[in-house]
């Protein structure tokens, strides 16, 4: 495995202050439900603040789909996954795969918040020779389980590692996040058939149902509905929830498998660009780069969120 030298190059946009961002860590053991939710909410706010600055500095990124998935990522890494920097070599660690790899900045920021990567490295996002490539690569970052970017890859890989866990009688679980537009890729439905037929109760598929894809609304492009029924027909136990509700997310993740002998599919209803007023549910923000003024406005909105 090759890990490229980590450089700290000059950042393009000197007009954006690189906010200090520190490791936040997991929800403390013994925290009450309310304390846990407060911890996750604060972490998600910090992750969004750092993410938008990274995208601004790099001049590239997918801010819309990052803001839709951040609450899911933060809840998994800071609370639900049996996975921490000290467990990276443990074969029984939980697996997480971000199949919508274009939300890389959200993953990197969450990994920094969870202590997997140095927060200072975030300023190298997409810079020459950075290990923070525009799409996550397993050969560059130890915590990345699968290299993703082209859509429809993460779910088959998740099915494979879940089969391996089942063969080994391991108690580990595998979580994978796909975009909803990504579910138009046929490979996902091949993988869902395999997951259902193998009864992979150790697998949880989370669909980031933000209802927007790159160019238009999903329903105006190649509609997925009735998505929950389709997932049920493929053998999933389906849970629907608000993908920005940390309490609902952690309850659902704790409850995986939601039914014995079946994979769990969570349809997480989200908004692209959430919770920023001028980005939310706006197709223009799929990979738009915010201006310095927009970054400032978004940071103020985040403070008040």
């Amino acid at each position, binding site marked *: 495995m090759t890990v490229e030298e980590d450089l700290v190059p000059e950042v393009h946009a000197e007009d954006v202050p690189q906010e200090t961002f520190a490791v936040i860590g997991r929800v403390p053991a013994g925290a009450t439900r309310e304390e846990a939710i407060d911890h996750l909410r604060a972490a998600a706010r910090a992750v969004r603040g750092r993410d938008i600055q990274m995208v601004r500095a790099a001049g590239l990124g997918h801010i819309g789909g990052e803001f839709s998935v951040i609450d899911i990522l933060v809840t998994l890494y800071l609370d639900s996954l049996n996975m921490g920097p000290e467990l990276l070599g443990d074969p029984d660690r939980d697996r997480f795969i971000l199949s919508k790899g274009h939300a890389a900045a959200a993953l990197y920021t969450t990994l920094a918040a969870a202590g997997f990567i140095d927060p200072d490295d975030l300023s190298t996002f997409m810079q020459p020779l950075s290990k923070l490539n525009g799409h996550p690569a397993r050969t560059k970052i130890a915590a990345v389980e699968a290299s993703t970017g082209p859509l429809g890859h993460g779910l*088959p890989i*998740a099915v494979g*590692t879940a*089969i*391996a866990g089942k063969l080994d009688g391991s108690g580990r679980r595998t979580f994978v996040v796909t975009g909803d537009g990504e579910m138009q890729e046929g490979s996902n439905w091949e*993988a869902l058939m395999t997951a259902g037929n193998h009864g992979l109760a150790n697998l949880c598929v989370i669909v980031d149902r933000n209802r927007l894809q790159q160019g238009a609304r999903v329903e105006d492009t190649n509609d997925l509905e009735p998505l929950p029924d389709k997932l049920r027909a493929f053998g999933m136990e389906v849970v629907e929830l608000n993908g920005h509700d940390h309490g609902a997310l952690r309850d659902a993740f704790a409850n995986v498998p939601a039914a014995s002998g079946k994979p769990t599919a969570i349809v997480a209803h989200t908004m692209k660009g959430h919770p920023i007023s001028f980005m939310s549910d706006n197709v223009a923000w799929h990979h738009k780069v915010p201006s310095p003024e927009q970054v400032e406005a978004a940071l103020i909105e985040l403070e008040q969120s």
Partner: protein
Amino acid sequence: MTTTATPALHDCRDAWVDALVELGREDPRIVAVVNDSVGSSKLGPFQQEFPERLINVGIAEQDMVGVGAGLANGGKIPFVSAAACFLTARAMEQIKVDAAYSEHHMVLVGQSPGMAYGELGPTHHSIEDLAWLRTIPNLTVVVPSDPEETRQAVRWAAQHDGPVFLRVSRMGVPDVNPAGYRFVPGKAVTLREGGDVTLIATGTVVSRTLAAADALAEQGIDARVLSMPTISPLDNDAVIAAARETAGIVTVEEALTSGLGGAVAEVVVRHAPAPMRFVGVTGFAPTGDIGWLLDHFGISPEGIAAAATEIVSA
């Protein structure tokens, strides 16, 4: 009792499955992943002995390669086995990203490649695989020429910490490597010394190339014969030596000539320009059985010898 009968021909899939069963007994991490291809991969004995370690995803090649990568993530050593035409063309992006770019320890086994499916036609031929796969970084491309080389290549791939494409033939081939042969990845095998011209062949057509060298010897032409079991990385040194020490090189393959031929030509042009001829498939095949098709494209002792004669008499 003496005999001059033609040598016995072998289906290399038998050696492949024997080696895999043997590995399966030695290492519980060995698993097979197939696309309803148990029969065409001759994996029956493996399935019988290790039923839970044979994962059949059905007719779903993208899923098959992705599942293989996931099994590697989960600590298994997956052999993903399917007809070469479907494995490579249908799942090319998974081969590129999930296997090669991800540097997963997984083995992609392309069964019945080239024109092995003969009369079934170009939809089922895999003549493009060598040209496609040799251009993918990190992917080792191995094309065994006989059962013993197949067996050793399977065992080597099981312990090589990286992605491998292994091209396993069903077309009957004789044993072409000498007794005591050791497969060394990335190395050419000199099957016949010679100083006039060099024939570089891979896989199923090595025996036809040796027959061509016999025919050339009758004409007084001393042909060197190299078997090239690894297409990527290529044995550049052997190619450069052949280009410098003989009048030129003929490449021979059961594939488009942009496979082995293209790979050798890149080295020759860069390091030791020399005359070359390319014997291989030059387009989608007409209807015909494999033997007829090989002759049709001139991948025959006569065709190979004629190409060599062109170089020597130029």
